[in-house]
């Protein structure tokens, strides 16, 4: 989104900031204990992000015989192409949060995205306001690598993040694995059992995120948007260089065949929460649907996508099973943290694996300047992430998306600086490499700078 087009949203943000200005100092306010009884303790939150993005301009010929009327005037071949190359200022996120807590036993959480440009799912023509999370939980769910006070059980229902997703992120970008497998929330129920303080078990039954395609850089890319149904379409946003990924569910409807998930983990941590280790093995299984209708695209998800627009562009799908197995590691040592994930997936018989690891450090900065009773430049946090996606299947003879089967490698490196209470700046660079079917190595890199304000 260019700056000029987002003026209206800037106004909304500024109004929101003005409205909530009196609460801006609340970030360091002491937390009061949850009140007992029926009246919950309510915590409201708001997060907004403004970004500067510079994306390289790359395109790759696709071996699909597009009818000339499906291509821009004068273009004879189709391309996978950087979504929106060049330099852009964007208002990327405006989200509202609410947490309600009734003592230790009952909690609810809601998150509404009024703008979520980089998680527009799956295209820019998707719905503009999205209920990103909405769940209620009975019992206590410990954070990863944090010891609960005692064993116990929790039950969570609604729309919530998958249990293997990285919950503590240090960069605004995502790795290849976290994009492909568990970036988006799912709807259903999750049961957690803490067998004492260290061993835990999780079981889930959810709708299952539909399989679709997106670019692993900031913008997902426009594929199957209404504009592309026009003769000789030349949309502002391009397809992106895409991978297969688990897209966001469309609604809270969990009719039909559910995805079942399970995890077994072991956690160890000190009582202070400074140091901790958590290892978890997990798996999911569901049946792929013949098609899944997604708002914002006329392409279908799941098998419809893999079967392609014509028989010659169908991937060698052998069944309708979608299975994922993986392992997670969380490690915290004071200001140092590591998150690692391995995934092995069979998508209708198409095998692929992914591995991702992120190292981050957080250094508190000395007090030099202050404004309004709060410190300027509070901390600095460098982070580096490596991710790799190894697609072990071949492309059909003609496919509009040959990048599905390429092998991908991505290194994200960045620095987050705490500017002020609730405001930080993240500068990061994504070195995004892949090996084409011809064996040639190519890149599609991106610089992303994000100013975030949260309260």
């Amino acid at each position, binding site marked *: 989104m260019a700056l000029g087009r987002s003026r209206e949203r800037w106004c909304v943000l500024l109004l929101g900031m003005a409205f909530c200005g009196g609460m801006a100092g609340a970030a360091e306010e002491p937390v009061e*204990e949850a009140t007992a009884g029926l009246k919950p303790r309510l915590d409201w939150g708001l997060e907004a992000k403004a970004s500067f993005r510079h994306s390289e301009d790359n395109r790759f010929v696709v071996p699909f015989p597009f009818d000339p009327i499906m291509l821009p005037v004068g273009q004879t071949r189709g391309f996978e192409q950087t979504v929106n190359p060049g330099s852009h200022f964007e208002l990327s996120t405006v989200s509202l949060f609410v947490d309600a807590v009734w003592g230790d036993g009952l909690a609810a959480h809601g998150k509404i995205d009024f703008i979520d440009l980089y998680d527009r799912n799956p295209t820019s023509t998707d719905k503009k306001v999205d209920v990103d999370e909405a769940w209620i939980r009975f019992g206590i769910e410990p954070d990863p690598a944090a010891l609960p006070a005692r064993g116990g059980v929790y039950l969570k229902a609604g729309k919530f993040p998958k249990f293997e997703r990285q919950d503590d992120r240090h960069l605004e970008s995502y790795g290849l694995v976290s994009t492909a497998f568990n970036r988006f929330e799912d709807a259903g129920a999750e049961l957690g059992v803490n067998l004492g303080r260290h061993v835990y078990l999780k079981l889930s039954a959810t709708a299952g995120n539909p399989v679709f395609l997106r670019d692993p850089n900031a913008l997902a890319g426009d594929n199957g948007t209404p504009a592309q149904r026009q003769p000789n379409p030349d949309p502002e946003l391009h397809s992106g260089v895409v991978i297969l990924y688990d897209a966001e569910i469309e609604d809270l409807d969990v009719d039909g065949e559910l995805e079942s998930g399970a995890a077994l983990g072991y956690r160890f941590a*000190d009582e202070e929460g400074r140091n901790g280790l958590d290892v978890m093995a997990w798996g999911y299984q569901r049946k792929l649907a013949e098609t899944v209708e997604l708002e914002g695209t006329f392409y279908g998800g799941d098998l419809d996508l893999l079967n392609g627009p014509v028989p010659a562009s169908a991937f060698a799908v052998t069944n309708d099973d979608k299975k994922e197995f993986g392992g997670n590691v969380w490690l915290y040592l004071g200001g140092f943290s590591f998150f690692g994930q391995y995934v092995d997936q069979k998508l209708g018989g198409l095998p692929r694996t992914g591995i991702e690891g992120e190292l981050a450090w957080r250094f508190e900065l000395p*007090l030099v300047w202050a404004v309004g009773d709060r410190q300027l430049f509070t901390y600095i946090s460098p982070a580096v992430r490596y991710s790799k996606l190894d697609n072990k299947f071949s492309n059909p003879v003609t496919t509009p998306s040959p990048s599905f089967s390429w092998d991908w490698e991505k290194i994200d490196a960045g620095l987050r600086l705490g500017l002020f209470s609730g405001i930080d700046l993240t500068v990061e660079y994504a070195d995004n490499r892949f090996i084409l079917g011809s064996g040639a190595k190519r890149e599609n890199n991106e610089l992303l700078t994000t100013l975030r304000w949260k309260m």
Partner: protein
Amino acid sequence: MRILALALALLALPPLHAEELRGRVQLLAKGGKGAARGSDVRQAVVYFEPASPGPLRLPETSFQMVTERKELVPRVLVVPRGSRVRFPNQDPILHNVFSVSAPNQFDLGLYRQGPGKEKRFEESGLVRVYCNVHHNMVAYILVLSTPYSVSPNAAGEFVLTGLPRGPGKLTVWHEQADSWTMTLELPRKGPEPVVAGVEIVRPLIPSHLNKTGQSYFRSQRDRYNN
């Protein structure tokens, strides 16, 4: 009647035969093997508690523990039981000094630059002082029922003067160690100084939670970032 008044006045005076106690504090590495590195022996407090304690003399003004450049200064403050301590904030940012050390626990709440707030410490004991906003801000208030205390010099040497004759307990306290104690009778026999070997067992920033019993570190995790 005059004789009775004189007797009472004499009781309130320091003992006629004030004693002196010399010694040395040695900070030892964990396991007691060799000298500890990185720990300051001057932060130790040596105090003598007579078996028959005399009256405490409280200062008219309050003691001070200042928040300065995200530190609590002094890091170790020794006060007589019943003293008042003021916590001025010299930083241009908010602090929230608190302690959960029973029975002297307190919570000053958030306060900005200025004279700060005051707390009276009615019971003797160690008060671990933290800031609810800044994990690394750590200090200690040692509330004593005795006026006889001193901190060693850089070589670890100390001299306690004006001590009353008779039995008592000598204690060496250091923030990174378990307290060292010794019962003794004054005056001591022989000229040898007391040597206290104190083993360093804790880091400079001790493990602690915020005032509501929550982890400082978990709250730093970025839960609204997905």
